[in-house]
């Protein structure tokens, strides 16, 4: 498939202007930052705390913002115009994901800074966070493609925010209820696991399993998104 940087950049520019004027959606980016500043002051610095914040950012920013952006393109019939243009599926989905990706990274960076999270191995954590964000953006795209309006989108994305933000509670519950053991394979819990190992001195080679599981989620979610998108191209 052909990728055109010019087209992706055009979609990014357009989304940036649109997003900066769309206060109803753009307001969510301040929530994780405010929480981070608050927790930083309280001196909360366990890995679980930091990753509740990071996973919340993934849910509220990566998934929610992306879901609303895609749903609005559908609701306002602008996605149709993109689809009918020479832009490829990769141009459109990539272009539509770029803004969310940049915002997510900025918010994660600032909230980690404010919450005073200093990973023992920054390189491993950066790769893990970038990789994880792809999963949430794909998930947001998928939910956006399913919803008919921004309103519907903002409702169906809620459970995602809750499930993924409060991952550490699921992990605790899983100790009591073995049926929840499977939840340990969720990308948010794998990320926490990975981060904990990094704090204990792990390098890239020690967290390959966690990386592989997160990568599996990323590939599966992107694949599903492209399939659904292609289906939506013809009514």
């Amino acid at each position, binding site marked *: 498939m*052909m990728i055109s940087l*010019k*087209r992706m*950049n*055009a*979609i990014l*520019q*357009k989304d940036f*202007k*649109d997003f900066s*004027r*769309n206060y109803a959606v753009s307001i969510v980016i301040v929530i994780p930052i405010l929480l981070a500043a608050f927790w930083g002051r309280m001196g909360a610095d366990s890995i679980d705390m930091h990753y509740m914040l990071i996973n919340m950012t993934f849910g509220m920013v990566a998934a929610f913002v992306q879901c609303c952006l895609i749903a609005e393109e559908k609701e*306002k*019939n*602008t996605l*149709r*115009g*993109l689809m*009918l*243009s*020479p*832009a*490829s599926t990769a141009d459109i989905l990539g272009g539509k994901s770029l803004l969310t990706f940049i915002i997510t990274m900025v918010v994660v960076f600032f909230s980690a800074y404010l919450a005073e999270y200093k990973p023992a191995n920054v390189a491993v954590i950066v790769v893990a966070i970038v990789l994880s964000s792809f999963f949430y953006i794909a998930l947001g795209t998928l939910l956006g493609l399913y919803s008919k309006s921004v309103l519907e989108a903002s409702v169906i994305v809620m459970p995602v925010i809750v499930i993924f933000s409060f991952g550490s509670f699921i992990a605790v519950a899983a100790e009591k209820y073995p049926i929840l053991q499977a939840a340990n394979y969720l990308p948010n819990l794998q990320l926490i696991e990975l981060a904990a190992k990094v704090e204990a001195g792990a390098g890239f080679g020690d967290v390959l399993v966690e990386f592989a599981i997160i990568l599996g989620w990323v590939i599966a979610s992107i694949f599903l998104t492209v399939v659904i998108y292609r289906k939506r*191209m*013809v*009514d």
Partner: protein
Amino acid sequence: MENIIEVSSLAKVFANQTAIESVDFHVKKGEIFGFLGPSGSGKTTTIKILTGQLTPTSGTAKVFGESVSLLKKAEYRRRFGVLTDNSGLYGRLSIYDNLKLYCDLYDVAYSKIDEVLDAVNLKQEKAKKVSALSKGMTQRVTLARALIHEPELLFLDEPTSALDPTNSLHIHEGLRALNEKGTTIFLTTHDMYEAEVLCDRVAFLNKGQIQLLDTPDKLKKSYSDSTITVELTNGEKVILPAGSEGANRLFEYMNTNQVETIHTNEPTLGDIFVQVTGRKLA
């Protein structure tokens, strides 16, 4: 002459509704082809099939000599432009920014923006936010967007439905100029006047079928009852047959200075539509 659109036995059935059943027609390269029909007759459905937005239930539809399923390819998409009621714009962005995006998507220089805005009479308005525009202005921006890459083939679904007569006229002039430069236009309308002034050929669509297809001129001639109406100075209107008997009576009226006006009685496309389908257009 080469056909740019070829449709045969085309049908589209939705879950519980037949939108079009067995439609056949072709559009020649360089013509303005009008699809005339009341609302619900299947005009939009046909355009959606021809632009690859809907898959037909049966039959074949070819555009540029290829099956419409191939329109997914970028090389074909570059060659046509579409305006339908589901062509949306970005409301929070200005007219200019909306068109700028499309310049990038189609690899067109930004200098084209002023040119197309001129064609739709919106050059002065280009900094305005789209959400603040009237319905007619929005429709003109959408039209400008469909033209921006100078497509070979333009699909216009009721392009002037929200416009006032002055703007419609301006758009008609623009479309004719575009057509003279070589763009083939496939246009749907329920405005018989628009079809008459703009189209080289028109098809009457009713209940998902084409009931008549010809040039507006030939249609009007073949449905004309060959009479003329003479309005006399005393206010009386007399209908005369076109033959020698009518000529003699007309000579008599003229000779005695009784004639106020003379009209030939050719039907409008709207009249013919009612006669053929038993339905009104609008």
